[in-house]
């Protein structure tokens, strides 16, 4: 036990004396959260739109007020002709234009039919789609208030409720993803590199010729990274709660327990990589290619797995991050308990046992 503690202490010295790695370890989660939260967002917020109101009557004013009231838009009122509008679109200044023709209210009152033109910049199809949907919804809403006094014989009114994420925030999607990514990256890369470093520097040779059990070498390597990763999980959760206003709906304890499981999975994967390579560079590359890319692609937070072709969907099943992502989403966003995620937990657990057994069998007590 004394030996084990001495070894863990030594590992902590390594971590804390390597400033660059330390910065990466704790800077990574913060940078990722800030990056995904504020820079790489596909949420619609404060989009500049132009309203060209040629009508200037009661009806058009009412609709414009409604549009202005929405936080999604930043409305600029101007009377641009069509050529100027096109120029503004080409410059990329505006994403959407709403044009009210002259006599808008008149047409509406007397012909019972009026037209509004909505022009969107569809070079980004998703944004264009979302924006036009928003504006259309506002117009339809106005129409409904108009009809409130008249009895309509038949009416089907869809009541839409966005469950778990009523404001359609991106954070719900990426925070669990970032957690998976950071844990995989830190644990896999750090364990594999730190074990391979011992081999490369020749210290493994000295350690092997000692009464210290090789299995303890591995265990004591895992402890510091387990602790560091749990700190990382805490940082991410604090950031998401206080910076991104994303509450944790489920049990925090369960969340940490599941995170610990993924950390152990990742640590055993790092161990497996370290047993099959002899240089730090190879270990680094293997963990980057072997972990970072599949985690980004197949965890499901960047690209929906359901839309992938069948072979890729099958491959995604062996990526631990995918299961962890489902688990975290269930606990954090949906507020579900263990009964809802026991299947995913079992899969992760199975993976961990498999990886541990394989890597421990591969771990050499000699040099070859």
């Amino acid at each position, binding site marked *: 036990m004394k030996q084990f503690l001495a070894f863990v202490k030594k590992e902590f010295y*390594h971590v804390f004396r*390597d400033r660059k790695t330390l910065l990466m370890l704790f800077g990574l989660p913060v940078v990722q959260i800030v990056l995904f939260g504020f820079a790489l967002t596909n949420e619609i917020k404060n989009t500049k739109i132009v309203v060209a109101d040629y009508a200037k009557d009661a009806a058009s004013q009412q609709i414009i007020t409604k549009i202005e009231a929405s936080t999604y838009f930043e409305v600029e009122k101007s009377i641009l002709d069509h050529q100027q509008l096109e120029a503004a679109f080409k410059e990329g200044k505006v994403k959407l234009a709403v044009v009210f023709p002259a006599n808008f209210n008149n047409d509406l009152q007397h012909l019972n039919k009026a037209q509004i033109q909505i022009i969107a910049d569809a070079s980004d199809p998703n944004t264009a789609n979302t924006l036009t949907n928003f504006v259309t919804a506002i117009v339809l809403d106005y129409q409904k208030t108009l009809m409130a006094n008249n009895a309509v014989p038949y009416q089907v009114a869809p009541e839409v409720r966005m469950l778990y994420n009523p404001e359609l925030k991106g954070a719900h999607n990426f925070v669990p993803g970032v957690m998976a990514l950071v844990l995989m990256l830190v644990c896999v890369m750090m364990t594999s590199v730190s074990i391979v470093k011992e081999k490369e520097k020749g210290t493994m*040779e000295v350690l092997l010729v000692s009464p210290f059990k090789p299995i303890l070498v591995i265990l004591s390597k895992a402890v510091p990274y387990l602790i560091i990763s749990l700190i990382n999980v805490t940082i991410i959760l604090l950031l998401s709660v206080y910076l991104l206003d994303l509450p944790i709906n489920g049990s925090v304890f369960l969340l940490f327990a599941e995170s610990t499981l993924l950390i152990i999975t990742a640590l055993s994967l790092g161990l497996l990589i370290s047993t099959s390579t002899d240089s730090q560079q190879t270990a680094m590359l293997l963990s980057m290619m072997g972990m970072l890319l599949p985690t980004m692609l197949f965890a499901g937070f960047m690209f929906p797995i359901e839309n992938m072709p069948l072979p890729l969907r099958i491959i995604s099943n062996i990526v631990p991050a995918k299961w962890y992502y489902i688990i975290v989403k269930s606990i954090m966003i949906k507020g579900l308990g263990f009964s809802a995620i026991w299947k995913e937990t079992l899969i992760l657990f199975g993976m961990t046992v498999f990886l541990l057994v394989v890597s421990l069998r591969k771990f050499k007590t000699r040099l*070859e």
Partner: protein
Amino acid sequence: MDSVTLNNISKTYNKKKVLAVDNVSFSVGKGELFGLIGPDGAGKTSIFRMLTTLLLPDEGTASVDGLDIVKDYKTIRSRVGYMPGKFSLYQDLTVEENLNFFATIFDTSIEENYELIKDIYVQIEPFKTRRAGKLSGGMKQKLALCCALIHKPTVLFLDEPTTGVDAVSRKEFWEMLKRLKQQNITILVSTPYMDEATLCDRIALIQSGKILSIDTPEKIVEAYPGKLYAVKSEKMHQLLKDLQAFEFTGSCFAFGEHVHLSFKDDEKDHQPELLNYLEEHGHKHIELQQITPTIEDCFIKLLKS
């Protein structure tokens, strides 16, 4: 009882393509300072790694402290001290932290065996808060030796401890080894430096995985067949060429500022003839004298025979 025994040990690498150690047998007595002398790639490190249970031999058996290197590897690991050829301590840990770490790993403490390392440790103690990576080459070796000694091993394996260390530190290092010998620790040391061979009790000359000769340094020198001469003149390059062309030359090679020469036969004294021959070829200030061979001369002779 012998401390270390090897019986017909062979070791190959790359799926038996490279033969590193070829049928090697020798034994080292308790408390002996035994040197494994040979150039780089001779198989010294392979032998050390097999004895420290880091590698498995392809053929043959060996024992350390009476324990089999394959079966009882765990016990051997807790008894021997091993210092690999490459500096293998933690560079980002301080001198003291390194020593403490290895002491704890071996389930002992610095205080417990301080007597054993005292002579060496006092030299590096002023730098005990310095990181190991920032020490000089000689200091690193001293620290590594301390770490290998901290658990009072019965057998100490030192793989090229003086390679890359300056001449003064080398001398100091060997003096430390002599003092350790008095503690009744068996020491196996390998080195590519032939001049260090004379400092060992017994040596094995090794080349291409084969042992050429095992004996005390004195006996190896005594066993040198024939007489050896050192020749010197003003034009050394020309001298070597002319000596090679001389009809009675057995072997000749440059050795420091002399050429070491032996004749094909020593039945007749060829010295006067040689002097005449060299003068004919325009050499001046010729020095010719018989010398006692060094270990290196013996090694070269053994290689050629």
